[in-house]
């Protein structure tokens, strides 16, 4: 098979809209694009002129799945710009909320978006009939994560209680205790999930990739909320405010979307696997155990193993949530007023959201209004890398005599493995489809 | 919904309906159906003409409907229901053998003591015939206890006439003075046409002691009252029936309150004299 044309309009089981187009002529890839057709949203534009404390509420509307992540990066960016130091309690609560979202998002991705591929069905819906226990388990874990978010933030999608400077609500001891019990009970579900993933055949793909993530140096924790930028090619840490030294946004000829590269590589990857590759030593022991069980070893360069890394991170987040709740119960939570701004200036907030490194940068005027904003979303950073992976997969599969359908499915699986959150795309271009 | 511990109390809840069975459903017009309903063991409802019941369709809701048969008749009672919303639409979907919840009889009906031995004039417009039909039947069943009896009935057009079988029978009766009219006659209509007030021409002179009942839409109500008062009938002898939103039907939920009265308790039947003190009733 020398000529292949693959067109997938609106790749399914993705957050947002993406089109895939591959042209192979005489065994050579003549064009390959993952095009983002999500409507442009102009967040950076309409943030301008709004008050500083509105930024988290506005930017969390970038994406329903990672709204906690956006809120977190946003409050951190604004706080940096306002010289606000939040209390230890606030940080504890933020981390717990963050874990809630991490679990929620990973479970959703693993069970609803990825598992159907492995089990050869089109969605989770038929699984309700064929594998009811699997679906029930997925819903149970998702609900636990949701309730965790709700107890801290009011709800998971677009959290309410988290503001610049602190929280307007604190969960009660009873709520925390209840959640802790359920988190502990969920270990059984995690074990079953690990067992399920051990059975699944993960396609192989090895390509030299740079993995970029936040890292808390020293004996610090596995980075989600805090950290500096590192990568598998350049482990020296870069401060959040200097993120532009590590992330170069650029325009690529063949694609209408902005791509990202690093000083070291034309493309790089962020996300669960990137975090695992950089920070695996800081995982909770239970998570490390599961990594061993399912055979995930750092450095792992197979992007399909992003799912496996998500599973490992889910274990880490559950265990860390239990520890966080213990700390909270020990110290007791009290209502605290939100910390007020000291100044209005420039600030950068970074966070490792489920899909990878998220950047929120703000410039405020002297009345606290947003003058400029720059938001870099994980999926934007991964796009170039996804395309590079696809360029490696297609010739290899053609070589192996795979059919067009097999190639298409494999490419879709690859895209889904990155769990791209296309509705997050703040500055992707909308392109007209040309055949 | 509530995590509270709950159990059955010794006394019954006022919100618990009696489960009653529909014996038959008869189509009246395109939007009205007549339901014949029996309580368990043929128990009589024990109502007065002019009272109403709360009808429950579980899962949909409850609504007040006037009882349109006389307590002197049979071991069942009638409800004539116009389809306007959720509950009424679901009622229209039910058939013989189905069950509904019934609470009642509720409210204050016609004060029969006031009517007995007197001339009676009933003027009904549209669906207003339903609540007064119980009184009409009562008078006809106890005909000897009343004086001269006249009934004027108006509908918008012939297809909206209710209780057609009754209309035929009433017309044939010698012991009542019955006239019917439609606002907009069609080609087949042979009877009187025009608004209901035009039927007053067909009436003999009214005795000043006549008890008059007027039930119908607000506009009709106003013009009929003018006709009646012009014939020097005292306001306290003039009766009408009010409609309001109702939830509990027993003077608690507040929805049917009009100024100081609860329509479900002091009404739905009021004399015009009483109504005048209820200013909001005319707003």
């Amino acid at each position, binding site marked *: 098979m020398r000529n292949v044309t693959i067109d997938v309009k609106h790749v399914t089981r993705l957050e947002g809209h993406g089109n895939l187009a591959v042209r192979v002529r005489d065994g050579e890839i003549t064009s390959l694009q993952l095009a983002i057709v999500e409507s442009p949203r102009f967040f950076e534009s309409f943030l301008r002129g709004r008050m500083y404390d509105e930024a988290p509420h506005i930017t969390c509307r970038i994406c329903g799945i990672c709204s906690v992540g956006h809120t977190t990066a946003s409050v951190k960016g604004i706080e940096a710009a306002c010289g606000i130091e939040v209390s230890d309690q606030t940080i504890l609560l933020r981390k717990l909320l963050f874990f809630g979202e991490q679990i929620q998002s990973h479970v959703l991705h693993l069970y609803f978006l990825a598992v159907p591929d492995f089990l050869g069905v089109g969605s989770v819906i038929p699984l309700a009939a064929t594998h009811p226990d699997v679906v029930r388990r997925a819903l149970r874990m998702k609900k636990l994560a949701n309730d965790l978010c709700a107890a801290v933030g009011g709800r998971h999608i677009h959290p309410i209680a988290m503001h610049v400077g602190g929280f307007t609500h604190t969960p009660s001891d009873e709520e925390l205790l209840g959640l802790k019990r359920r988190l502990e009970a969920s270990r059984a579900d995690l074990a079953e999930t690990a067992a399920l993933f051990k059975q699944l055949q993960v396609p192989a793909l090895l390509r030299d990739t740079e993995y970029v993530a936040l890292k808390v140096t020293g004996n610090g924790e596995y980075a989600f909320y805090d950290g500096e930028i590192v990568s598998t090619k350049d482990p020296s840490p870069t401060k959040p405010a200097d993120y532009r030294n590590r992330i170069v946004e650029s325009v690529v000829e063949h694609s209408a979307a902005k791509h990202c590269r690093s000083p070291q590589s034309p493309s790089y990857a962020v996300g669960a696997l990137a975090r695992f590759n950089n920070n695996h030593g800081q995982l909770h022991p239970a998570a490390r155990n599961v990594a061993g069980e399912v055979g995930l070893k750092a450095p792992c360069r197979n992007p399909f193993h992003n799912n496996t890394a998500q599973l490992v991170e889910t274990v880490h987040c559950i265990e860390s949530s239990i520890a966080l709740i213990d700390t909270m119960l020990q110290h007791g939570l009290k209502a605290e007023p939100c910390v007020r701004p000291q100044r209005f200036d420039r600030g950068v907030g970074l966070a490792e959201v489920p899909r990878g490194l998220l950047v929120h940068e703000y410039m405020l005027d002297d009345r606290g209004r947003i003058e400029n904003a720059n938001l870099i979303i994980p999926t934007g950073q991964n796009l170039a890398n996804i395309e590079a992976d696809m360029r490696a997969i297609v010739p290899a599969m053609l070589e192996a005599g795979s059919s067009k359908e097999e190639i298409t499915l494999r490419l879709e699986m690859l895209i889904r493995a990155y769990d791209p959150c296309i509705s997050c795309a703040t500055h992707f271009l909308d392109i007209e489809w040309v055949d | 919904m509530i995590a509270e511990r*709950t159990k059955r109390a010794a006394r019954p809840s006022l919100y618990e309906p009696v489960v009653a069975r529909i014996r038959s459903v008869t189509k009246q017009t395109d939007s009205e159906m007549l339901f014949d309903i029996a309580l368990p063991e043929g128990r009589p409802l024990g109502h007065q003409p002019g009272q109403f019941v709360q009808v429950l369709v579980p899962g949909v809701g409850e609504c007040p409907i006037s009882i349109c048969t006389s307590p002197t008749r049979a071991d069942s009672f009638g409800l004539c229901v116009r389809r306007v919303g959720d509950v009424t639409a679901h009622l229209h979907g039910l058939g013989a053998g189905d069950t509904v919840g019934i609470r009642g009889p509720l409210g204050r009906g016609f004060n029969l003591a006031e009517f007995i031995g007197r001339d009676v004039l009933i003027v009904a417009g549209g669906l207003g015939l339903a609540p007064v039909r119980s009184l009409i039947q009562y008078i006809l069943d106890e005909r000897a206890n009343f004086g001269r009896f006249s009934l004027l009935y108006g509908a918008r057009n012939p297809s909206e006439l209710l209780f057609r079988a009754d209309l035929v029978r009433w017309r044939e009766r010698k012991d009542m003075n019955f006239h019917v009219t439609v606002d907009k006659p069609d080609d087949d209509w042979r009877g009187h046409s025009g608004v209901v007030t035009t039927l007053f021409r067909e009436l003999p002179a009214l005795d000043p002691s006549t008890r008059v009942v007027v039930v119908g839409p607000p506009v009709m109500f106003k013009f009929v009252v003018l006709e009646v008062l012009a014939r020097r009938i005292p306001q306290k002898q003039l009766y009408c029936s009010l409609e309001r939103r109702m939830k509990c039907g027993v003077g608690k939920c507040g929805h049917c309150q009009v100024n100081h009265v609860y329509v479900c308790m002091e009404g739905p039947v009021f004399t015009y004299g009483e109504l005048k003190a209820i200013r909001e009733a005319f707003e």
Partner: protein
Amino acid sequence: MLDRVVHRTDLSALIDELARTRRIVGPVKHEDRFFYEAVDRAGRLDLDFTYCVYSPKAQLLPPKETLLTFDRTTGNFTCHPLYDERPTVLAGVHPCDLHAIKLLDHVFGAEHADEQYLSRRRHMFLIGIDCPHPCTAGVFCRDMHAHVADSGFDLMCYPLERDQAGRTVRYGVQVGTTAGQEAILYGRVGTPPTPEAEQHLARYQAEKDRAFPKAIPVDSAGLPGLLAKSYDSLLWEATARRCYSCGSCNLVCPTCYCFDIHDDGALGGNGGERVREWDGCQLRGFAEVAGPHNFRPKPGSRLRHRVFRKGKWILERTGLPGCVGCARCDRACTARISLVDMYKQLAEEV
């Protein structure tokens, strides 16, 4: 007349004793406001509270409750009423709210008794706490003769003595019912009142009388007359221009008891329930019927309806005041529409 004198710790012990077979509900402080809340022991209550933002109405007529569950099978159904019969001690009810509960008792206990309300009420032990001075500015309980209560409680506690921190340390207790009597005897709390304590109470009451000012131009007996002359006042429409029709004034009011009933069916299956929920005459759809026709479409007529209910109609129907002057409605109104202001303006008009 006092029946007992108890120390604050005795009162706590008494409540805890009662709570061996009952839940405890009473004022709990959150930031600087008090709310009725279920607690596990009396020590969590703050009986020196000023006022509770919400009245105890919610304890007797919950914002939302299931009246019946039903089960539908083809063409047939059965209904099961539900009751909340948890024995409860409601500790810390001010006289105004005791008056309000009396009104609720009357409304729900009268003709067509509401067993869902009454069963809850019958299982409620009420401990009143008298207020030595107005709980906050703007109240007009005195004008409504609701600043003192001589019945409607199981026990009534008069705060006779305070410590330096302003906490009541000694209460004079008056027994209102045999249940109250039994609780005192069974709990063996406090000491019999001495003549000195009686004098103390007399002094307390005299001081209280001076502490409660007149706040509106007429009292509860004069209100019906004032309102009768004000039906056509332009004040209603003028004031209502600011009214959101948000119903907050209704819902926080201890004497507003209007409700809605609706059905909630289960998804798939034949079960479901009939649910009662708070409603309020200020809400736009309150008097709306199918059609749709709204019998009270204008905010001005709704506002007038509420004020007439509070000041005139309930009193005339029940003989009990329809408003106890707690001013919760005034405080809850974010448009700052105030009964006190309206009464003052109406009095100036006539």
